[in-house]
């Protein structure tokens, strides 16, 4: 009897397992494999053997020899890695704090739940590229941003804009796009907090900010941890926002200029020019970095997250 059940269970699971095997596990393992192959060509599937050099090439530690000249890949170490880390360090804390404040604000208004919740969720279901194009218009040198803030003529994302300006616009866009999902998660968490805790805090004359820091944040810590981990991972993989907002990897007419590169942007670009072995090496390194970050967060959360 038990055996038959097992067999049936596997049968039900089979479609998922097969799909996962084909589209998740196999590519995953293959990526690791390819990252150790020299001069891998995915059209022919050939390579010139096992090597550790791909990692060194990607990080620009070792020159690539072709036609007698040695050239170093500098885009990753110069742009992609710093940009990715800036995005992570700026947008993750900022979007979490803003989302938390908005959620707390919304939670104190009763009619919000039904009406505003939908409105706030709209950006989340809107395509990142489409939203990016709207932001691209906003950040035109004659756009809404400059109009509202009186910074007419400043280039944010056009050709000739400085990296700092473009990064600023990019971060604004990423934070804005990241808010709705976080607000939604925080709101549902807030609605589960017993209001007696707030009544108790009020009777004890705790101010609004103190209540937020001493009651709301600790009681919301499971949701905050979840959001922190997922948005760290998401920010490390930022790519579509650059495409959506700027449309190309650099703020210059020069095709080779890639000052807005992110790690994942580099990975996609490498695949497009048949450098899958570099892409795989970069992907593997990104994976390890994300893994380390996530483990650190879990470790920290042991002492910070309650329940």
């Amino acid at each position: 009897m038990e055996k038959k059940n097992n067999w049936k269970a596997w049968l039900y699971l089979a479609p998922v397992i097969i799909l996962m095997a084909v589209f998740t596990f196999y590519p995953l393992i293959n990526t690791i494999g390819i990252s150790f192959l020299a001069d891998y060509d995915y059209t022919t599937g050939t390579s010139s053997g096992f090597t550790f050099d791909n990692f060194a090439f990607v990080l620009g530690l070792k020159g690539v020899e072709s036609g007698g000249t040695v050239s170093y890949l500098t885009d990753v170490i110069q742009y992609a890695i710093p940009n990715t880390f800036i995005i992570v360090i700026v947008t993750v804390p900022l979007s979490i704090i803003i989302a938390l404040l908005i959620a707390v604000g919304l939670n104190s208004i009763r009619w919000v739940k039904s009406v505003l919740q939908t409105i706030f969720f709209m950006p989340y279901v809107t395509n990142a590229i489409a939203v990016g194009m709207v932001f691209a218009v906003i950040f035109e040198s004659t756009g809404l941003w400059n109009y509202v803030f009186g910074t007419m003529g400043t280039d944010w994302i056009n050709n000739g804009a400085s990296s700092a300006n473009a990064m600023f616009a990019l971060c604004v866009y990423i934070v804005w796009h990241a808010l709705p999902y976080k607000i939604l998660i925080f709101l549902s968490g807030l609605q589960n907090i017993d209001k007696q805790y707030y009544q108790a805090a009020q009777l004890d004359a705790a101010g609004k900010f103190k209540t937020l820091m001493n009651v709301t944040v600790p009681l919301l810590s499971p949701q905050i941890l979840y959001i922190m981990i997922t948005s760290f991972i998401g920010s490390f993989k930022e790519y579509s926002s650059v495409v959506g907002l700027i449309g190309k990897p650099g703020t210059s007419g020069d095709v080779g200029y890639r000052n807005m590169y992110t790690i994942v942007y580099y990975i996609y670009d490498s695949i497009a020019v048949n450098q899958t072995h570099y892409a795989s090496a970069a992907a593997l390194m990104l994976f390890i970095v994300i893994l380390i970050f996530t483990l650190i967060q879990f470790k920290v959360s042991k002492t910070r997250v309650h329940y």
Partner: protein
Amino acid sequence: MEIRLVNLTKVFPGNPKKNIPDTRAVDNLDIVIPDGKLIGLLGPSGCGKSTTLYMIAGLLEPTSGEIWFGDEDVTRLSPEKRGIGLVFQNYALYPHMTVYKNIAFPLTNLLVEDPVVDEKGNKILAFYRKHVKALPTEIPTHLKGEKVKNPFKNGREEILKFDCSHIAGDPILDDKGEQLYVTRKRHLTKIEMDKLIRETAKLVQIEQYLTRKPNQLSGGQQQRVAIARALVKRPRVLLLDEPLSNLDARLRLQTREEIKRLQRDTGITTIFVTHDQEEAMSISDEIVVMKLGVEQQRDHPQEVYNDPKNMFVAQFLGTPPINMFNGHVKKGVLTIGDDVIREDLPKDLDEQDVYVGIRPEGFLVPADKKDYVFNINVDMIETMGRDISLVGSHKESIKPSFKAILDADTKVNVGPLAVGVKPNKCFVFLKDTEERVI
């Protein structure tokens, strides 16, 4: 401090669209709670006890009526300014804080006023600026010229401070006739807090649990932590909302003694909400019985028991509950079935059917007077150690059976029995209003 509720009413608005009627949770409540006393607020579930408590605490705004603390009208005062300690029905301890931090939390917000002293250690007299202007000209020459925030009016009005030793003439008095000194508000220091926390923890006997989180404590311990948290800031009023409802029977007995002891030791005016009449009777100085938001009776527990105003109060108090019978009154004579029970009813009472309530301890076996006997049928005898409980039946009894509590030495057998009825344990209620006649 005395608490006075004047015509206190709370209506929760309904929703006419969805056909939900308004709820009058508390209806014209008029109660005076004497200073330093423990009052039990007693009533069945949903009668508005918690609502009353929350209004006193300031968490709910009354629809109408007033709340007075001593001679201060606090009806519109926000909760944090009322100086209330509230123990919630489910404690509401912060789950992420240790017991120590839970108790410390109210203290971290507390502001104390210290007098400001000059270099000689003298307190500094305070004058309102407008008072200074009105002073004779020779006095302002001693003015040190330093401006200080007025501690009496939220810092909005400036005052000037003087060196005490130079002050001549009449001191400036506040409205209570006391001399004003310059004071400074400050938070408690860590050491002061620690002392208070440990004192309070000792009072409720939880010193050994200070480093634990609430979920590592038993219900009774959590309850004591909740009381400590409410007491630590030395509130003017302590409110307890069914604090014992989560405890088992033994712990409940023990804890209610502790609450009584604590209240007596601290002398804080306390309101204790419960739907358990025994609990209320045993620890309260006075009890208030409520029904559907309306006060039914307020008195010392024994008075309410011995002298209930109406049928609801009589039925609500006492375990086992009072036995109810259908009776008849004619020319001052009360009968149940064919038996005459009392003859001392008011003669002017119209002939009518009434309800008769007889407390379980109100039966006499054997009957002492020949002329007042009540013929009942004994179905069962339960021995309960100190007492025996007699389960009887009577055709006029409202319930299928009723209970009498008798001394253990009494000799009774199952079957028909003539018992006496103690007149002071036998109450008569009108059928229509359920008000008590005698």
